[in-house]
């Protein structure tokens, strides 16, 4: 057990992130901005794709994340749960620097993608986003583009060249199990599809750029149960080849799709562990309260 010692943020003492007691094999030790020591636990035998170290996020003068140390395991699904306003979406958006489009947003600490700090001043956020793709809460296919063009959007909009575009379209649509439904209507507008189909189209669009990581910000909250089930199935299949981080307010969903779950509360990472552990034997009372529905 190598969970970091108690850290003090902004003068107020915070409890250490709990979890991974048994799993922790190769945690990375680090020194926080206030001089305290901490570590980012990585499950045994696993590799961190992204790790955030002492991540603090500000909107203007308000701090909304108070030093998050978390490793996103490579080739697995990590769910981020927590009550609304706990900072889970903000955390997710920092992972590909999408927070930057919010005026006044500012990040301190480090976010390492394969050991490279993506917030370094010499890093182009645009390139980060090509490696770390994103799927949004509301399906947002480009309404002026056909289904086909939507799949290829990341390639064409970036001015990249792909040799076999038909192949890309078919492969990506098959990958999201949309091919059979739309293969005869690839020229139709993307917005003519149903909500669930649109969301799968958006996932295909993100995959076409061959990202290494896929961030999903409550991807099913605008979908009906059947469409939700299909997207969840899809997530299962995708984790073979991608690292996925999914924000959800639906704990059942986290239980169904995620290998690891992180519980955020009031801008802090309270607990991180294997999903089954979080849901059966949480170590923190706040986690337990939340997953048993006592608040949030």
């Amino acid at each position, binding site marked *: 057990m190598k969970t970091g010692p108690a850290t003090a943020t902004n003068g107020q003492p915070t409890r250490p992130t709990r979890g991974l007691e048994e799993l922790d094999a190769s945690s990375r030790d680090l020194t926080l901005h206030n001089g305290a020591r901490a570590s980012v636990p990585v499950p045994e035998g696993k590799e961190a794709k992204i790790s955030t170290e002492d991540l603090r996020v500000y909107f203007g003068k308000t701090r909304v994340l108070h030093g998050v140390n978390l490793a996103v395991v490579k080739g697995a699904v990590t769910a981020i749960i927590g009550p609304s306003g706990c900072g889970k979406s903000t955390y997710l958006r920092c992972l590909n620097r999408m927070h930057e489009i919010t005026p006044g947003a500012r990040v301190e600490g480090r976010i390492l993608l394969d050991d490279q700090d993506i917030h370094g001043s010499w890093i182009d956020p645009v*390139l980060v986003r090509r490696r770390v793709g994103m799927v949004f809460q509301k399906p*947002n296919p*480009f309404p002026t583009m056909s289904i086909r063009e939507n799949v290829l*959007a990341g390639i064409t*909009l*970036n001015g990249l060249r792909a040799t076999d575009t038909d192949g890309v379209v078919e492969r990506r649509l098959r990958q999201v199990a949309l091919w059979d439904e739309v293969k005869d209507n690839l020229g139709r507008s993307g917005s003519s599809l149903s909500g669930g189909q649109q969301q799968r189209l958006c996932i295909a669009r993100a995959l076409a*750029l061959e990202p290494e990581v896929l961030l999903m910000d409550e991807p099913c909250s605008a979908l009906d149960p059947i469409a939700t089930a299909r997207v969840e199935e899809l997530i299962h299949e995708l984790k073979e080849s991608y690292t996925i981080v999914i924000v959800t307010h639906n704990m059942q969903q986290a239980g169904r799709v995620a290998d690891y779950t992180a519980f955020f509360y009031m801008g802090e990472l309270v607990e991180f562990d294997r999903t089954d552990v979080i849901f059966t034997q949480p170590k923190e009372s706040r986690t337990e309260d939340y997953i048993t529905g006592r608040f949030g």
Partner: protein
Amino acid sequence: MNNYRYRRLIDLSIRGACIAAVVIAIVPLVLVLTYVTVQGLSGLNLDFFTQLPKPVGETGGGMANAIVGTLEIVALASAIGVPIGILAGVYLSEFGNNRLGKSVRFAADVMSGVPSITVGLFVYGIIVLRTRQFSAWAGAVALAVLMLPTVTRTSEELLRLVPDSLREAALGLGVPRWRATLKVVLRTAAPGIATGVMLAVARVAGETAPLLFTAFGNRFWSASINQPTASLPVQIYTYAVSPYDEWHRQAWTAALVLVVLVLLLNVSARWALHQRVRAS
């Protein structure tokens, strides 16, 4: 009960007065359009579109040069005014939530109220005086200045209607901001902006005052855009205030052509917008 009946009477008479106001407001439109159609049709023939104006005293002739001149000046004006207006609109909607944006917005609104004749004077000062030449492109600049505020504000409004989720989608695909704006945001708003542009073009196509001392006029074909150029509105004015009956007839026909041109642009733009609003 009497009190109620009295109030009811007042209500009815106010409604009546309002309906009367609507009718009075619309009567001139009907009258003008009827007269222009009836009077204009009598002089409408192929010559009108293919011939140059004839000297006083001779009958026949047409306004081919003025028709071409108007199209030329308006096309030039659009080429100048539309891109500037749209890009300024892009600034206002995408980056304009600051003091500069506010000032630009205000300046555009104020500018849309500046009399067209003073715009003519302005362009006379900055172009005609310097080039020592009335020219089609001086006229085009004047019209461009006139359409600029409308195009800017319409573009801004329509770009604002593009949902942020599309901006995020593009940025999330690793598309740089400028590409996302041009290829996604602008493209999504394009049909609406096209409507706005058409309305602005229709408005300036009928403008006379700003052309009087910029494009001036020409009884013949203009060899280039650096020469005085005839335009339908100016020609209508010149002919209308002349003492010759033949010219008056031609002025009516020219007015018919101009009105058809302008209203066609205007109505089709509105119709397109209406269809789109219904479709969405």
